[in-house]
């Protein structure tokens, strides 16, 4: 079972071959979602009754925040697999995801700040949701620093795995921060699957944009992983 998995999916060689045809598909999916989401979000979706057209930044802010947390979750899963089964490909995936996650976190903070200025009247406030996302950014930066400090690649993979697993504690804090503490940041809008508190004409572009961001992450991470594989093969 494991040998079969290893031969067809997990080995660096198999991954490289498999992703050669996968990349155009991811690219197509990303383009479709992105164009649909951008167009309907900016032109078709009705203006908010309170915030007017200003609310449209949600189509960048929420997807980037979602991607920031999603990428960390991916990294934590990869870290688990790396620690338990010592699989190489997940370690590469984790190390390539770190910088992308950091950029998405930064994007979420910046767009949130731009959104906050007209709506809350301030660029930044030490609210629980904002602070916990800022901590996520620091954790990403620590991850990148640790990664670049250790030279031996095996030690590096395992050490960053442990760090990533310790950092997973921050994800539930971010998610529930708007529920546990009474904050300025609004409560969850779309994660309540039974009854989302957003009109469907606004919801569908948002879902499209979220999928576009996630597909974009997959696209970038696969390209980076392929480069990483080539780099490692050169050295060995």
């Amino acid at each position, binding site marked *: 079972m494991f040998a079969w998995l290893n031969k067809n999916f997990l080995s660096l060689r198999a991954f490289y071959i498999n992703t050669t045809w996968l990349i155009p598909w991811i690219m197509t999916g990303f383009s479709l979602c992105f164009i649909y989401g951008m167009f309907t979000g900016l032109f078709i979706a009705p203006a908010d009754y309170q915030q007017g057209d200003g609310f449209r930044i949600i189509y960048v802010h929420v997807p980037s925040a979602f991607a920031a947390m999603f990428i960390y979750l991916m990294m934590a899963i990869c870290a688990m697999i790396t620690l338990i089964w010592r699989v190489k490909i997940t370690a590469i995936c984790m190390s390539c995801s770190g910088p992308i996650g950091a950029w998405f976190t930064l994007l979420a903070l910046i767009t949130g700040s731009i959104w906050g200025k007209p709506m809350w009247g301030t660029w930044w406030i030490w609210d629980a949701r904002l602070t916990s996302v800022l*901590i996520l950014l620091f954790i990403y930066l*620590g991850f990148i620093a640790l990664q670049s400090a*250790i030279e*031996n690649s095996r*030690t590096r993979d*395992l050490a960053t795995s*442990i760090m990533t*697993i*310790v950092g997973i504690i921050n994800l539930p804090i971010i998610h529930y921060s708007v529920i546990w503490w009474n904050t300025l940041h609004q409560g969850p809008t779309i994660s309540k699957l039974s009854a989302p508190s957003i009109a469907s004409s606004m919801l569908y572009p948002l879902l499209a944009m979220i999928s576009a961001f996630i597909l974009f992450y997959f696209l970038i991470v696969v390209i980076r992983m392929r480069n990483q594989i080539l780099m490692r093969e050169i050295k060995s």
Partner: protein
Amino acid sequence: MQLNYINVFFQLTTYEIKIILRSTVAWITPHIFYVIIVCLFPIAIGHDQELLVSMAPGVIWVAALLATIISMGHLFQNDYHEGYLDLLLVSTYPLSLLALTKITSHWICHGLPLILISPLLGLMLNLSVEELYALIFTLLLGTPVLSLIGAIGAALTVAVKGNGLLLPMLIMPFYIPVLIFGTGIMIMTHQNMPVIAYYAMMGALVLLSLGFAPILTGQALKIGASR
């Protein structure tokens, strides 16, 4: 001959404490650093009594955090370079137990003195008696967490050359919850509000890190110290 774990724990801990206390300068430097940092704030900000009292919890807590990180850098470093760590790694005792002895000795040598100095610094910042008690209790609950979490980072970076700035960057984000609840208790005490829920959260943090940190530190040592 296998000694039982409790004996091993006490023997190793006293041994570690002796080693730390013997290099007096290295032991005392973080504490002096702590005092200096706290004293810098009144000098820089001016002697506005009200402002000082409202800032005191944050100042003392941040200084304690920095002092802990400074002392944390040496936690495994000497043992690693002298090869003592390799002996610990091949011993038959569980790594988490050995990690716990290092953490305990670190807390006794570096955490306890911080707590003993802090009332003095609190007085210098004009804290009232209730706030001084709150300061002592929060530090008593908080510093073990700082030592426990910091040990994971120290173990991961043990083999990294020149890890002076890497370690703070790595573990600072994980110190933030302790900081929030520690200063939260002080602020609530200042406003005469009930603090029991905050103390409960601090206790939960202690138990959580006491449960996980020794195991993770042991694993991190195994990875970080592999040559």
